[in-house]
């Protein structure tokens, strides 16, 4: 959401007086106004410092210590970091999280782009379709995970009945815990349902920002649909696509709710995500230092990743 741009750029500069000697009262008035502005910004400053900058420094500090949930912290660097390499579960969780991120990013992007193309023009029914695709977003993600737990369950869920009626499956299927693949697939379907409409909405804003005369020119030049899409829509959508990809990958790398609730990380830890490992270190093994170490590594990866994305984005759009 950080790339939403302002509609009226640079209002303050229009109010800066032209370069001529300032009278004393004018200067005093400007100082007073600066003070008032700083006072209005104070609550934001306090919140950002106290609940963002301090914890950011604290998580790095904690990662250098043996920091039990109860009891005294003790400096032990770099034990929390060297422990990371040896943790078997952490390694499999990292692999799983990357695998999940790739699958979700690709599928969600394709589905959301398809939906956006379907509802990009104003025609009858388009408002209803957009609302229908976006509506799952109004259900909290934890609630959505519980909804799918029931939907995919054998006891009250209709999915198995429906598929066996169609002859696609035979008998009892335990979707969320039967096999690693079906557990992953359950989570992916849930995420597609919940986030496709939201992603579609962001992509729509990009689609609508393409000037109609560009399409008109392509039509005059005799370009067919595929050529127009390939040569005009996609290149002009690049910044929006980059934003959507960043949101999707960051969100997936931090996946928690869907696995905590839907698959419980199983079967046999096969769907345990990185954030689940952080939770386990902190609140089951009561080792906050180790949890902080993993958090710092994950954080570094995310920041590097985001910076790279924006680099690429800026280079291509300039």
């Amino acid at each position, binding site marked *: 959401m950080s790339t939403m741009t*302002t509609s009226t750029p640079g*209002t303050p500069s229009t109010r800066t007086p032209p370069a001529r000697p300032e009278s004393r009262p004018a200067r005093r008035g400007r100082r007073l106004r600066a003070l008032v502005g700083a006072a209005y910004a104070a609550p934001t400053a306090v919140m950002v410092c106290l609940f963002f900058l301090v914890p950011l420094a604290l998580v790095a500090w904690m990662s250098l210590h043996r*920091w039990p949930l109860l009891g005294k912290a003790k400096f032990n660097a770099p034990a929390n970091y060297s422990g990371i390499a040896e943790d078997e579960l952490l390694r499999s969780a990292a692999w799983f999280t990357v695998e999940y991120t790739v699958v979700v990013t690709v599928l969600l992007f394709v589905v959301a782009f398809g*939906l956006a193309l*379907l509802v990009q023009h104003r025609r009858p029914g388009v408002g209803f379709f957009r609302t229908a695709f976006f509506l799952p977003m*109004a259900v909290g993600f*934890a609630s959505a995970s519980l909804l799918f737990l029931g939907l995919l369950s054998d006891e009250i869920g209709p999915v198995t009945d429906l598929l066996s009626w169609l002859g696609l499956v035979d008998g009892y299927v335990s979707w969320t815990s039967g096999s690693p693949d079906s557990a992953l697939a359950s989570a992916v379907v849930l995420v597609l349902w919940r986030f496709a409409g939201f992603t579609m909405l962001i992509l729509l804003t990009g689609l609508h920002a393409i000037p109609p005369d560009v399409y008109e020119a392509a039509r005059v030049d005799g370009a067919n649909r595929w050529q127009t899409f390939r040569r005009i829509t996609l290149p002009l959508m690049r910044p929006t696509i980059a934003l959507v990809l960043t949101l999707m990958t960051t969100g997936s790398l*931090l996946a928690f709710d869907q696995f905590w609730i839907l698959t419980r990380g199983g079967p046999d830890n096969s769907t345990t995500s990185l954030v689940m490992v952080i939770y386990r270190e902190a609140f089951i093994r009561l080792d906050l230092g180790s949890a*902080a170490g993993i958090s710092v590594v994950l954080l570094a990866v995310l920041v590097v990743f985001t910076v790279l994305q924006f680099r690429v984005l800026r280079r291509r759009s300039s």
Partner: protein
Amino acid sequence: MKPRNARWGYYVTGTALAILFLFPLVWAGFASVRTDTGFGLENYDRLFTSANGVQFRHVLNSVVVSALTVGGTLFTATLGGYAFGRFRFPGRDVLFLLTLAILMVPYATILIALYVLLGWLGLEDSLIGLSLVLITFQLPFSVFMMRNSFEAVPVELEESARVDGCTSVGTLLRIMLPAVRPGLVTVGLFAFLTSWSEFFAPLILLNSTDKFTTTLAVVNLRTASHGSIDYAALEAGVVFMAVPCLVLFAAMQRSYVRGFTSGAVKG
């Protein structure tokens, strides 16, 4: 080109997909009232009365957290947005960039530190502590939204108020706030939807069951059950959680979607 076929393709695809997307919602509503003998509210009854079910206290906690988060977000982001959009003061740009940088650091990675920090502040296992964290992570979007809203208000409007002898606070309250109402609605709606359904932050920051929010309590029905899960009661919980969001969403959908697309991502 076959326009008529294309139009049919659009309707058929759109309708089929809309059914697919709406089906889980409709099914949850259906499953929550279906009982062994027919239809009734027994599932809701079990949701609210079973030993580890949802208590009135949990709903109240959710309401308190949502109210604190919406109020705190609106207060902080309105003042901040006004300051960033209309004033020049030392450190303005640095603070604005820092606020946006919160987006780059997803809270899941610093929640461990927030847990320790809130303990130091005496806000361990507290609804206020949870709300403060939720407010902070609403700030990048909310401050950005409010700054844009304030910047879009004509400067003359504010200046004429000042000439008429309005104080700074008076101008903000009587002239500026009505002018940025769509922004306020969007920011408030987002803050509510997030705080009402948030799961991970309360899971980490709240320890005792009587502090649980509704989301935690409903999820607890699943995670605390060893063996058989009461799926029907779970779906009742899902519906109970979703209804306020769906109602608000339907009531404000117009301004929600407009707020979303008007600031818009440049394509």
